[in-house]
């Protein structure tokens, strides 16, 4: 119940930002933790008096959130689609989490209770006094919100921004300012929630993910944008988790909550506690769709491709053994990201469960070849089939969901798989992982060295990239790009939207499962955090940083995020921070990704070099557009 109050508070923050900007702000949970950790520093390290420490911590969090919001969140609002905004806030979450890792390290922290350790006895039940503080704070926040939105002009202005930003602007409301205000206000209450919960739950730098997910589930249960819904959803979730932990298993309590969420999203996407007033979810979500068009055609591209293959084949001869290992990992992840590019970059369906499909692939192949002694190749094939089946079920179930709701559905699916990875101890080895996986082998040949594994992965990549390039540059790719933004217009041209969506889901899941099984065979070990939801987010980051909708571009993103931390060991601490920063920067400064940026530079240079001759003759830039 007490945790539920904090979920409710975080959920309120979600609802607030959603109400004003129509964006689901995933960075919410990070502010909880930032508040709590700052309070710890002020209270325990600097020995400030408690009220001052709390005030200071809230102030620090709000100042940080406001500054960050002003340079990232608010300017992006007018430029990015809602699904991109969701990713951007995921970037802010990662960035903040990584920053806290640098500042506070990986240790868990706990604050002393506000009014002593001694529980009070009430009707014969012992209750920790911190409980009253938590409940009280939640109540004050809820009442404050109610007052703000029903009794003040400011509340009306905030509301107007959500209903119709354009009209609100015309009425003289400073929409960006209201957006920033909602962002900061949400951070304020989140930090308060974090500070209040810290005495009964120890927090560490990445607890924010947990609060974000729980708060988000609360608000999704209750109904996006509804304050009452957020609060009731939070309390419901808290209770449900406790009941599940008490009666089923603590490992499955998450799965229970997530199943609740999935069911809600599928049957009542608008939430359990919303009546009447509803948002339309069938409008084209990506009105602000923007994607740079990067096309490489002609002889130049073929030459580049041949050169790339040659480099790929020669690399193991020149690099060190340690680096070769990292290159194998890069290659394996790239296979998974390739699938994600078909789903996200071409078909425009946000998939936040690529890690889950990797898990299905890795665990099924690993378990079949370890426990049941199947030949690895058969294990991989079966794993791919299993993932395909799971993907089709998921795709069918989420067919009606679009944009952010789809993102949420896939996220929930990913989290359910996560909790199964950890929860099914007897089958998967639980949190400590599946050990003793044999090396991959085909017939008598075992891929048990880095070098043989490298050539296997490189060969697969060449085949996959060629096949996908063929498909994406012809009718298949055009059909996917058509349903990406306008399913109605696509249908009017005879494109079977359902079939192509399913195809995109299937390709992404198959490639993820392939990557997951290779991953398991390469490490001869698989643990839940290797293929969990953080991995899904990392893969999305790689794709976006590298360049969506280009197939080969994401290799740059994968390589950057995989090789950099291994090459420069001292940077490992900054990895999370850098990932978040890169994602945010990619959205703000380089929407076409690294690949698009490079292609643009190359095409400009090419046009300049060939000069006016070509410009006059055939219309410039046709070869490299």
């Amino acid at each position: 119940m007490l945790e539920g109050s904090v979920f409710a508070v975080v959920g309120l923050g979600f609802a607030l930002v959603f109400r004003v900007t129509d964006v689901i702000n995933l960075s919410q949970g990070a502010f909880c933790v930032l508040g709590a950790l700052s309070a710890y520093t002020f209270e325990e390290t600097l020995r400030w008096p408690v009220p001052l420490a709390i005030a200071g911590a809230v102030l620090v969090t709000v100042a940080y959130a406001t500054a960050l919001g002003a340079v990232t969140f608010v300017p992006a609002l007018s430029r990015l689609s809602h699904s991109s905004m969701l990713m951007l806030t995921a970037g802010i979450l990662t960035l903040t989490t990584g920053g806290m890792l640098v500042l506070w390290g990986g240790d868990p922290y706990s604050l002393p209770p506000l009014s002593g350790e001694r529980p009070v006895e009430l009707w014969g039940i012992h209750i920790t006094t911190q409980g009253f503080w938590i409940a009280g704070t939640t109540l004050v926040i809820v009442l404050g919100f109610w007052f703000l939105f029903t009794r003040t002009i400011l509340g009306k202005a905030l509301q107007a921004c959500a209903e119709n930003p354009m009209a609100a602007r015309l009425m003289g409301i400073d929409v960006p300012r209201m957006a920033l205000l909602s962002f900061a206000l949400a951070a304020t209450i989140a930090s308060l929630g974090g500070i209040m919960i810290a005495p009964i739950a120890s927090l560490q730098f990445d607890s924010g993910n947990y609060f974000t997910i729980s708060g988000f589930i609360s608000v999704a249960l209750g109904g996006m944008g509804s304050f009452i819904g957020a609060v009731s959803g939070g309390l419901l979730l808290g209770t449900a988790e406790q009941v599940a932990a008490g009666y089923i298993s603590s490992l499955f309590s998450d799965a229970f909550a997530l199943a609740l969420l999935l069911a809600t999203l599928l049957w009542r996407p608008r939430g359990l506690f919303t009546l009447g007033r509803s948002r339309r979810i069938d409008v084209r979500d990506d009105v602000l769709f923007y994607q740079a068009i990067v096309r490489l055609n002609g002889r130049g591209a073929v030459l580049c491709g041949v050169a790339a293959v040659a480099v790929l084949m020669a690399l193991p001869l020149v690099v060190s053994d340690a680096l070769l290992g990292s290159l194998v990992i890069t290659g394996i992840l790239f296979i998974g990201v390739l699938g994600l590019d078909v789903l996200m970059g071409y078909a425009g369906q946000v998939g936040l469960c690529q890690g889950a499909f990797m898990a299905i692939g890795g665990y099924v192949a690993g378990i079949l070849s370890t426990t049941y002694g199947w030949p690895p190749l058969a294990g991989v094939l079966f794993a791919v089939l299993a993932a395909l089946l799971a993907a089709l079920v998921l795709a069918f179930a989420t067919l009606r969901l679009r944009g952010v709701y789809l993102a949420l559905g896939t996220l929930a699916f990913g989290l359910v798989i996560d909790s199964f990875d950890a929860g099914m101890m007897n089958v998967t080895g639980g949190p400590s992982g599946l050990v003793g996986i044999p090396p991959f082998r085909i017939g008598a040949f075992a891929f048990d060295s880095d070098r043989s594994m490298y050539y296997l992965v490189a060969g697969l990549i060449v085949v996959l990239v060629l096949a996908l390039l063929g498909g994406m540059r012809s009718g298949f790719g055009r059909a996917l790009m058509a349903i990406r933004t306008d399913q109605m217009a696509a249908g009017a041209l005879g494109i079977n939207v359902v079939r192509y969506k399913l195809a995109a889901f299937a390709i992404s899941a198959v490639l993820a499962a392939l990557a997951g099984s290779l991953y398991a065979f390469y490490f001869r070990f698989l643990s839940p955090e290797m293929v969990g939801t953080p991995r899904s987010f990392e893969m999305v980051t790689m794709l976006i940083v590298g360049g969506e909708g280009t197939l080969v571009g994401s290799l740059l993103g994968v390589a950057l995020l995989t090789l950099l931390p291994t090459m420069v060991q001292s940077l490992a601490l900054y990895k999370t921070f850098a990932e978040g920063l890169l994602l945010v920067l990619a959205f703000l400064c380089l929407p076409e990704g690294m690949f698009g940026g490079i292609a643009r530079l190359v095409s400009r240079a090419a046009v300049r070099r060939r000069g006016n001759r070509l410009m006059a003759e055939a219309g410039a830039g046709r070869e490299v557009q």
Partner: protein
Amino acid sequence: MTAALEASRLSKAFGGLSAVDDVSFIVPQGSLTAVIGPNGAGKTTVFNLVTNLYQADKGEVRLFGERLGNERAWQIAARGVVRTFQTARVFPGMTAFENVLAGAHMHLRSGPAWQMLWLGRVRREEARLAIKAERLLELVGLARFRDAPATDLPIGGQKLLEVLRALMARPRLLLLDEPAAGLNDAETAELAALLRTVRGTGVTVMVVEHNMSLVMGVADQVIVLDAGRLVTAGTPRAIQQDKRVIEAYVGQEEGFPDHAGG
């Protein structure tokens, strides 16, 4: 010969508001039929009813003699009925050329698996379609925008692009929803020429349009709707002299305006 489109006693209400009320008409094969009427007359609703975007409350639609059930959009397109939309709906993130090519989707003979193998068959098919798409772009003067992002085209260009895209689908019945809205005079002239060419190839065209000079110049048959009801249907000449039409359209007898506002 069966009619391309036969609507009998179509009715559709939204809430208590009747958008289309007991409307019947026939679009003969090979004709160019225009639907006119003031704002709110139910023109676009008729389009949405015959393409199953809405389900009719009453009445039935026959497309080339076959009764329309609850087919999905792509199934209706597969019957040869292709439509455009009132606001230009080109696909963002694709070039103008790719947008036109996307229209040929139904006629691709090689499926995704073959396309991935990029065999000679696929290459030849793509090349053939590319030539056709380029020819169409040239026909309406959009060739110079070939590799530009479709959404960078001026609004008139986008609307023409949408018509080209629909043509690539080789429709038997082409439904155009206000194709001239947002077009400048030169573009409107291109459109008129294009419509005549299209009808010349035997395609039946039905067009909702506000631009009277365009309608009167190219249509064989004009259907007039007002407040959801059919006022009359006939040749452009007959319509121009019909008192009921003038009343419905301008509300008073002042003769027919050359350009009714769109």
